[in-house]
């Protein structure tokens, strides 16, 4: 008989080892899926690794796919740590694009740095604003933020569709010839395009987008905020026990709202980076096919809500996504990326129980205690 007991102490080592073992387990499971569907796992994994991290071009693309995921991952981590389940990074990122593009278009003619700063502010502001809707409902109406933020993703998607396809909005391109054939967004002014740094010592040079660096900066800020500030201390108490926080005189409602807005601002900043570094316009179809927000939740969960781990995990999942895109074809069926992400997440989620609980294999009285293998 197997008994599950809560661990009194959670050894630090476990919180690193268990996720790693879970990921290894996931690779094994995916290999089985591949074998079952007639693919050679070794071959597929090899190709996957090469297309993700194998050369400078691959690394450049991986950084590009990782950038939005760092932002949405941080957005999810910031909220989930507080037991605020903001599923709305997806929609908040859309609004970030809307805000950033509007800022750049409004600042047309200003110096590049001003335009880029304006995009960051515009993106973060709209993202925060959109996230404040579930935030306000949760803080003042005790309405479950999971479902509201989720529903608002779809509303956000419909809003950006409307802006480009069904109205002559500020964001829509109404002048260029191609726009007459198919509706599309107004392109950013050249000065508003975000720069890309070249890491030169690698042969050919790996291109590191500004957005990725901003994201890494956001991770440092977030970590400092949660670990070293009074605000972060209050958040930790509220997350652990809202009653204790109220007892200690903390203003819980304001903090809930602040965290939702912060989470939305990070996602919105991700939208700004996406528009500035990669898309250069508001592209509703493209945005809605990427699932940046939902993947961000995967990233945050795999990183166990640690901001630095978010950067790393986003880089790895970005590589997977980029490779999946590059390899799509006979020996790498589309859909495998989602399957792999899902299995990674299932394994790490399932592995969590090994951190919180310990398994004891009991025989007859006078029991022997053996650790249970990873599921």
């Amino acid at each position, binding site marked *: 008989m197997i008994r599950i007991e809560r661990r009194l102490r959670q050894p630090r080592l476990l919180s690193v080892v268990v996720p790693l073992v879970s990921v290894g387990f996931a690779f094994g499971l995916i290999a089985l899926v591949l074998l079952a569907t007639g693919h050679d796992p070794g071959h597929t994994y090899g190709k996957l690794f090469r297309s993700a991290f194998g050369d400078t071009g691959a690394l450049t693309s991986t950084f590009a796919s990782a950038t939005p995921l760092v932002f949405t991952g941080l957005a999810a981590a910031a909220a989930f740590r507080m037991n605020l389940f903001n599923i709305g990074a997806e929609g908040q990122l859309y609004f970030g694009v809307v805000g950033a593009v509007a800022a750049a278009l409004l600042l047309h003619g200003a110096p590049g740095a001003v335009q880029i700063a304006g995009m960051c502010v515009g993106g973060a502001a709209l993202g925060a604003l959109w996230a404040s809707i579930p935030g306000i409902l949760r803080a003042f109406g005790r309405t479950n933020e999971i479902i*509201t933020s989720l*529903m608002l993703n779809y*509303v956000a998607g419909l809003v950006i569709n409307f802006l480009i396809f069904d109205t002559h909005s500020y964001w829509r391109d109404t002048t260029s010839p191609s726009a007459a054939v198919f509706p599309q967004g107004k392109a950013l002014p050249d000065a508003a395009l975000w720069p890309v740094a070249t890491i030169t010592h690698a042969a050919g040079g790996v291109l590191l987008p500004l957005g990725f660096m901003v994201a890494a900066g956001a991770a440092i800020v977030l970590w400092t905020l949660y670990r070293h500030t009074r605000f972060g201390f209050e958040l930790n108490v509220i997350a652990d026990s809202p009653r204790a926080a109220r007892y200690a005189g903390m203003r819980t409602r304001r903090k809930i709202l602040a965290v939702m807005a912060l989470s939305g601002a990070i996602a919105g900043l991700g939208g700004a980076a996406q528009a500035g570094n990669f898309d250069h316009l508001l592209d509703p179809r493209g945005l809605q096919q990427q699932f940046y927000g939902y993947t961000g939740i995967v990233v945050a969960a795999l990183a166990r809500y640690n901001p630095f781990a978010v950067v790393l995990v986003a880089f790895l999942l970005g590589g997977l996504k980029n490779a999946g895109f590059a390899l799509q074809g006979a020996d790498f069926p589309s859909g495998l990326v989602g399957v792999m992400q899902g299995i990674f997440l299932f394994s790490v989620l399932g592995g969590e129980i090994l951190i919180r609980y310990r398994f004891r294999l009991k025989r007859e009285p006078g029991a022997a205690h053996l650790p249970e293998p990873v599921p």
Partner: protein
Amino acid sequence: MNNSIAVVIAASAVLYGTPLLYAGLGELLAERAGVLNLGVQGMMLVGAAMGFWTVQRFHVGSGGALLTAVGVAALAGAAMALIHGFLVITLRASQIVSGLALTIFAGAAGLSSYLGNDLNLASNPARHQFGAVFPSAAQHWPIVGPILFGQNLLVYASWFCVLAVGLYLSRTRPGLNVRAVGESPAAADAMGIDVIAYRYAHVLAGGAFAGVGGACFSLAITPQWVPGDEMIAGGAGWIAIALVIFAFWRPDLVLVGAYLFGAFAALPFTLQARGVTIAPELFQSLPYVMTVLVLVLVSSGVAKRRLGAPAALGLPYVREER
């Protein structure tokens, strides 16, 4: 008269509402047992894929193939739900994260697309599809003809399911037990109800219903395979989750809500065909906006006790905790 806009909209509301109805009933069963499953979108897509694959593969006559397809879709949905159930019931993982993981795993960029490719679903048109059951004379009766008699078997079966689920929850002993498991697992456990078994059973039933909901698209509404979320009209799975809240966790209201949301889904097409141009986004966003409003209402003090979610929704049950 049967071409009047109201009748056309009502008829298509029933058609488009049916998958929502199946998926919503399934989610309702799982949530009544205390398990939130956000993976409906994924379960529906896999159900749609496997249902479509079955009609293409089994050559046993139209009726047999279609019924088998519905069964396979249900099994596929239940298999997806089993993953979620194992993670959240046995391994006590977060229901939210696990449900989202299921959406990604099984959804438009995951297993359903993988299956669609590997099984070559997109290349062939449908061999069989569900059609109208009643003779065409009945379908031409004024008003009720198109709405009530012009529908396919899946629609009629869904009415039976609403009735069955409603009676099950309110009038039977296992139904009472499920409600107890969702409200207070500790009380249910103390009275000898197997909380774990009840939760598994209803999560699996929920998955089966979602699978059938997905199959409604690939076997009746748009009998073909299209990769991506478009296969199930964009976000049918998410609307189904919204629907359960909108219906205050009651099967009869799930029916009403499904047809209302179905009407919103169908309205833009119908209006467009009549030359009326209203931004389709307006109607498409209504289900989401209305659900948010209902949720705000439900979470306000007074309504919470009478209309609220099962009290233990989203919480794992652990007996031996100290």
